[in-house]
């Protein structure tokens, strides 16, 4: 069978399509973005009419996916790990409602923070929600898990979390495709109250969820994604999860006959864990992310058998693992320090030359020179790079939307001028509600929505608010005369600085919208 060369992200997309998907719901976020993009471009997906338009944020995505499941069809939700924080409310509650059509929730973690604010481990969310999760070790498994994931979700009646990490998400390898399953027809839940989480119903649903836990363990014990490889050398057993299994196999010569338990499905398979813990004198746990399994095995008092991993420094606690850190855990020899020739300089990313965000920061910085007390609260997107030289323009970047609300809080605390800088996509993702708070209290803040008509940071996806920003701000109650649209170009520098100054001086909420298309998006459009 012909192999397709696919990123794990693409393999998940194809696995879902072939597994009978009816709709993907997602907000872009590295390293998950390519899944939805693949489905948008795929001919079979188009022929089947699979929904694939971007959502405004992860919460709206998760809820729409549950809606599709309610109607009996199979849905996939994709996000980066921090997106699951945004979607946490419907995610947690969807574990209580359960599903009708199968639901896969894909969360892509980013250990080492290649493109993220933190390295939280999504497996904790599955544990928190008391639902099963899957973690592929390679591209083929990524395909298979997406392919079989819907059936599993329908069989167990719960959403399934699919966790991947950057390394796998953005690595390509050969994948063999399976036969396409048919899509589900519309059907409604047998129990008409299933999705109504009034306390009386939720209590019953939750009791069901609790009672099902042993069934999920059972399913894990019999899962093809959990494998026990016995070995003669019982001095040490090894538990390896997801992608770390590859690093282990890269170091075959150091395994030394140890029994290995490869984990790809959670909750942990009790029987297999019990076996390796009983038969071996010590256990090395190799997991990407937080020490979830290690903590469970160790127990609070740490009085079980010897467990090595991230908690005792056998493996690094921070950052992603690699074949070298796993080699040193196996051999007990300290990894040699990586010595890069002295002449090599850091090369941090920067805003593209000619980018409109640059003109915005030039003008903003010029005005704020006259206000030494000013604080600028940043947000997440290309414009976060305004934190670096030559601009050094922003003092914060917390989470999507926080620029406006942090500016408001600081203004409440007496900071003036309090300025927020936010992108168009981030504004519609999570900025609108904060702006409403500010308007309702007539907070003295100046909000710059740097509108490049796209979601640039993640590669130029459509932005939900394009063409609607002024109307949104006005609708929320920002005064029309304090919604100022500018074209961020060098030649407009004087106009920009005078407008910014006027709006800072205005006592209340003003919104400045410098608007010019992202150069990369523009270039791509011209090519097409």
């Amino acid at each position, binding site marked *: 069978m012909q192999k397709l060369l696919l990123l794990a992200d693409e393999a998940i997309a194809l696995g879902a399509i072939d597994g009978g998907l009816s709709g993907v719901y997602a907000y872009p976020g590295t390293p998950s973005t390519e899944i939805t993009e693949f489905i948008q471009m795929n001919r079979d997906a188009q022929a089947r009419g699979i929904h694939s338009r971007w959502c405004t944020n992860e919460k709206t995505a998760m809820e729409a996916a549950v809606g599709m499941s309610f109607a009996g069809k199979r849905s996939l939700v994709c996000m980066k790990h921090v997106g699951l924080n945004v979607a946490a409310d419907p995610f947690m509650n969807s574990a209580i409602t359960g599903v009708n059509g199968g639901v896969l929730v894909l969360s892509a973690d980013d250990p080492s923070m290649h493109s993220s604010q933190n390295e939280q481990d999504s497996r904790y969310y599955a544990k928190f929600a008391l639902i099963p999760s899957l973690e592929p070790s390679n591209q083929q498994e990524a395909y298979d898990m997406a392919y079989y994931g819907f059936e599993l979700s329908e069989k167990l009646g719960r959403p399934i979390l699919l966790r991947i990490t950057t390394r796998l998400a*953005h*690595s*390509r*390898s050969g994948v063999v495709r399976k036969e396409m399953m048919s899509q589900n027809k519309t059907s409604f839940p047998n129990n008409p109250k299933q999705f109504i989480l009034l306390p009386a119903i939720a209590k019953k649903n939750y009791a069901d969820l609790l009672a099902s836990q042993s069934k999920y363990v059972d399913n894990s014990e019999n899962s093809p994604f959990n494998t026990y490889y016995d070995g003669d050398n019982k001095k040490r057993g090894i538990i390896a999860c997801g992608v770390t299994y590859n690093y282990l196999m890269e170091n075959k010569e150091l395994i030394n006959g140890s029994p290995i338990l490869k984990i790809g499905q959670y909750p942990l398979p009790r029987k297999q864990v019990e076996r390796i813990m009983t038969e071996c004198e010590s256990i090395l746990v190799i997991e990407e992310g937080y020490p979830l399994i290690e903590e469970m095995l160790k127990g609070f008092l740490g009085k079980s058998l010897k467990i090595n991993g991230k908690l005792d420094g056998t493996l690094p606690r921070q950052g992603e693992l690699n074949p070298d850190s796993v080699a040193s855990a196996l051999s007990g020899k300290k990894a040699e320090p990586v010595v*890069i*020739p002295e*002449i090599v*300089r850091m090369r941090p*990313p920067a805003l593209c030359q000619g980018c409109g965000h640059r003109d915005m920061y030039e003008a903003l910085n010029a005005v704020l020179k006259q206000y030494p007390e000013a604080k600028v609260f940043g947000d997440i997107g290309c414009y976060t790079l305004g934190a670096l030289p030559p601009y050094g323009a922003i003092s914060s970047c917390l989470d999507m939307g926080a620029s406006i609300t942090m500016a408001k809080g600081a203004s409440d605390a007496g900071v003036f001028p309090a300025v927020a800088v936010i992108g168009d996509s981030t504004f519609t993702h999570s900025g609108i509600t904060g702006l409403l708070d500010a308007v309702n209290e007539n907070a003295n803040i100046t909000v710059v929505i740097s509108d490049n008509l796209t979601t640039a940071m993640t590669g130029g996806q459509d932005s939900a608010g394009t063409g609607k920003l002024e109307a949104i701000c006005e609708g929320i109650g920002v005064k029309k005369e304090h919604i100022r649209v500018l074209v961020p170009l060098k030649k407009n520098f004087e106009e920009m600085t005078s407008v910014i100054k006027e709006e800072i001086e205005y006592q209340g909420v003003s919104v400045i919208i410098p608007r010019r298309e992202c150069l990369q998006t523009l270039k791509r459009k011209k090519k097409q």
Partner: protein
Amino acid sequence: MKTDIILSGVGGQGILSIATIIGEAALKNNLYMKQSEVHGMSQRGGDVQSNLRISDAPISSDLIPLKKCDLILSLEPMEALRYLPYLSENGWIVTSSAPFKNIPNYPEDSDVINEVKKVKNSVLIDVEAIAKEVGNTRCSNIVLLGAALPYLGIPAEYIEDAIKTIFARKGEEIVNMNLAALNAGRGESINRFHD
């Protein structure tokens, strides 16, 4: 056979276009391959790299271990040096000699070049000049790939076929230009070797 390659450069230079060609060649000839890429933040002019592993036996890790890399293929000389800890004892560096200066503290050009020359097996070539001779600076990446042909561990014909397949959509002229660029790069690299 087994070849571990690190492709490096600066975000926007298009290292992945080289990976695509090698990938096509590998897959078509039933070789195993894993290729880890960089997407996201660093693509905005930061340092970027891709680990590309090709083998006739299954491959485990998506990442190349330290001191195991057979070839560093770089579109920028300082970026080639960044991955030196990964180069194996007998590994090769094949790099463009043209510095890409988008940082204020870029070292002296000659210092960078000398540092590359210190590496036992290194090929520095002016890919843009050669690409210009062949017809178009847009083939620079292919010139570099050509220069690496002797160290790839896969037959040159595989790469030529892959170029034909990948550029077929763009017409015969473009295919031929890229094949010429590949050959020019290969010629340059072989000449150097005999210097």
